């Protein structure tokens, strides 16, 4: 079961249901990752983030990432929720949940999905700082490097 959702609303209230949703028969391991908006980058205190995306294409690309994860690790189920629009500090921004028979597959697949979400899915972040400045976030070299460790067939 793959489930991809792009939404403006927070997803914290949905978490208990998602846990039930993804816990399939005979799966022994469930990993979930939650990303949260941090309060400051290297320089200036952040006010909020704005996230733009490319509707339809985003969902397609995320499903493609999940298919690859399933092909490689044989995961049972995966859920991705990614928020867009205005996001304040401390708010959740992305959720990845993966269930699998064993923990190694669940951990690796969820890391893979996050690495690919960061570098393949059409989302763009703009930072709005407390001093009134704003700027589009640049793609991080460290994210590109992290992606390289997955030499999947």
């Amino acid at each position: 079961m793959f489930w991809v959702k792009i939404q403006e609303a927070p997803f914290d209230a949905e978490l208990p249901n998602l846990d039930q949703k993804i816990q399939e028969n005979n799966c022994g391991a469930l990993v979930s990752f939650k990303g949260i908006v941090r309060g400051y980058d290297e320089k200036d205190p952040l006010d909020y983030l704005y996230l733009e995306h490319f509707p339809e294409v985003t969902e397609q690309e995320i499903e493609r990432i999940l298919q690859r994860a399933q092909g490689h690790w044989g995961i049972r189920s995966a859920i991705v929720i990614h928020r867009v629009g205005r996001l304040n500090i401390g708010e959740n921004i992305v959720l990845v949940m993966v269930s699998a028979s064993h923990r190694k597959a669940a951990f690796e697949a969820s890391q893979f999905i996050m690495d690919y979400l960061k570098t393949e899915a059409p989302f763009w972040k703009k930072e709005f700082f407390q001093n009134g400045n704003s700027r589009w976030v640049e793609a991080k070299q460290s994210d590109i490097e992290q992606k390289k460790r997955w030499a999947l067939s």
Partner: protein
Amino acid sequence: MIKIRYFGFLKEILNLEEEEIKWSKGNSQELLTFLRTRSSFWAESLSEENIFRLVINKKVIYETTPISSGDEIAILPPVTGG
């Protein structure tokens, strides 16, 4: 005619969300070359490092692909989600 859509910071520096241009035939690489000849500003804005991928009719393309009249092309700068 083809429609071109711009996203993220490209939309902002070009001050253009979408445009329609005449296009008889050619591929995705030729479209980029054409757009870059508009001015040095366009050439710089659409430099290779500023373009992550092209999308044709809502399908991401991973290699040079023919573009026909009626297509919708999206130009995506490097992505920063997650």
